[in-house]
């Protein structure tokens, strides 16, 4: 049994009744031994009826164990039915790659919202991960916020496998639908000049409509800010609320441009907080983001 399987099994053993667990194990065995697709379908749909929908009760050690198996895998918000469905998904035979992908396509194309969330948040755990790129880009186009979030948030798959175009669309859409950006795994590592430009353009659109902009938007921008963006940051520092000023200051601090450093020096308190390590993107996420809905 794979390490992922073992962890999910252990967590479910602690969270559901013996009867429910026995039902799940029986279905797992049938699917693994090549039962008709219909068995997978009806079982996958019926999991909440047998296991319920309570949250998994995971400890800090459980979450660390998940990180050890797959960096970025964070099942802290998973429910028991999601864990159960993931186990059924992992039971599918995958040696015949083409057949496996055909089945997955069929599952994705008939899944309801709860099922889609499981399918997408399980992507980093599935075999043949490199073959799910197109599917993931498709999922990012979903109009259902929790389906989108199952891909974008607390999921290492996009950072590890998406190309820049799909990755940038995902980050921009996260901003657009109001998802918390600090939950995007690999956000800092995958920041790039095109994304910085797209985010700054988006901020201009919002400002034109007299709407606010999440201060987190500046997080992937700092390192790649050009002089036009520095001018934007100058405006935010001069006129923004305190959380916006802090975000702009953090963005300036990450910029290699002398213009950005000069700008930051006009705000010595913020500059000092950053230099002393009191103001970081993590502290910002912890302390400031509750003010932004």
């Amino acid at each position: 049994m794979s390490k992922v399987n073992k962890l999910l099994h252990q967590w479910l053993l602690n969270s559901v009744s013996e009867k429910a667990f026995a039902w799940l194990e029986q279905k797992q065995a049938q699917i693994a031994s090549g039962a008709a697709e219909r068995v997978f379908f009806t079982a996958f749909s019926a999991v909440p009826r047998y296991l319920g929908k309570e949250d998994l009760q995971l400890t800090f050690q459980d979450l660390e164990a998940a990180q050890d198996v797959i960096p970025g895998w964070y099942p802290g918000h998973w429910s028991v039915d999601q864990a159960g469905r993931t186990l059924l998904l992992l039971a599918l035979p995958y040696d015949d790659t083409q057949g496996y992908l055909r089945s997955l396509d069929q599952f994705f194309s008939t899944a309801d919202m709860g099922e889609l969330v499981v399918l997408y948040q399980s992507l980093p755990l599935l075999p043949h991960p490199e073959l799910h790129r197109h599917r993931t880009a498709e999922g990012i186009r979903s109009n259902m916020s929790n389906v989108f979030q199952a891909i974008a948030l607390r999921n290492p798959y996009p950072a590890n496998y998406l190309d820049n175009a799909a990755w940038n669309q995902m980050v921009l859409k996260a901003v657009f639908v109001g998802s918390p950006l600090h939950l995007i795994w690999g956000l800092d590592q995958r920041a790039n000049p095109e994304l910085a430009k797209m985010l700054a353009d988006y901020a201009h659109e919002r400002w034109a409509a007299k709407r606010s902009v999440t201060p987190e938007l500046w997080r992937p921008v700092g390192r790649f800010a050009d002089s036009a963006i520095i001018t934007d940051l100058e405006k935010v520092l001069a006129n923004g609320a305190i959380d916006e000023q802090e975000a702009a200051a953090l963005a300036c601090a990450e910029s290699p441009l002398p213009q950005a450093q000069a700008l930051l020096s006009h705000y010595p308190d913020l500059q000092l907080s950053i230099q002393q390590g009191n103001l970081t993107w993590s502290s910002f996420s912890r302390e400031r983001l509750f003010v932004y809905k």
Partner: protein
Amino acid sequence: MMPNAPSPMPNVQYPIIKTMMFIDPHIHMCSRTTYDYLVMREYGIVAVIEPAFWLGQPRTNAGSFKDYFSSLVGWERFRASQFGIQHYCTIGLNPKEANNEALATEVMELLPLYACKEGVVAIGEIGYDDMTEAEDKYFCQQLEIAKELDMLVLIHTPHRNKKAGASRSMDRCIEYGLDPSQVVIDHNNEETVEEVLGRGFWAAFTIYPQTKMGNARMVEVVRKYGRDRIIVDSSADWGISDPLAVPKTAQLMLDRGIPEEDVRAVCYENALAAYSQTGQMKASDWLNPQSVDQRQMFSGNSVLRGQEPGIKSVSDYVLIE
């Protein structure tokens, strides 16, 4: 623009119904606007059931059915949830389209893929339209599926030759081993109600302008037959129909002296009692929705485009910011 939904007149008061909860257990939301959800929630509708039916024109391939079933269990359910309305559905091959046998055979293969999904409360709406042999064949096959999966059935009674169609539908249900308490017969009128109630089935009535049942007539049906096993719905769809038909009928019943507990039974409790039998629908879904699935309300979404989800008065939407 031609108004599809008769919206509530701004100066018309519905004093009592605004404090009651309603279920509309037969409404085709895929043909309604998001604005309807807003108004429905404001008028006390907490849950809807959307039976799978046709789309105004016949579908030409099974893929259209697949997308339609997917939207019933997926997008439509989500869209409703954003306005504080719980959305359930029934899955089935409708009587009219059963007459395209090549297509019907493929659709029958799709049904098991959807019948077990969350929020699917029955196999339906199935039954007769022209009462052809093909309609009968697929009706019976679907009764078998319902029996096998231990599900409820929602029956569409035909517009033409209704009385005979209703009788034969009930005969078939009994023949295939279904208990009348597991079957809802819909689109009833004064001519069919007696037999349906007498044989122990649930009797639903569609309040639909010009055809089917009117709400003044509905008041008299309840006065005559009481509240047991009677269910009121709107069946609102692409036609000139009213998504507020249930609360408006409730108001009329109260105005005309039907006791409040009877109104509550036929506009809320009976639908809940009938459809909760599958375990896919319960009052806690809307009375305590956060405990059911907090993830569904996790954050923003694209239906709202920046507006707050939930229940706001329609008048708040005059100014578009």
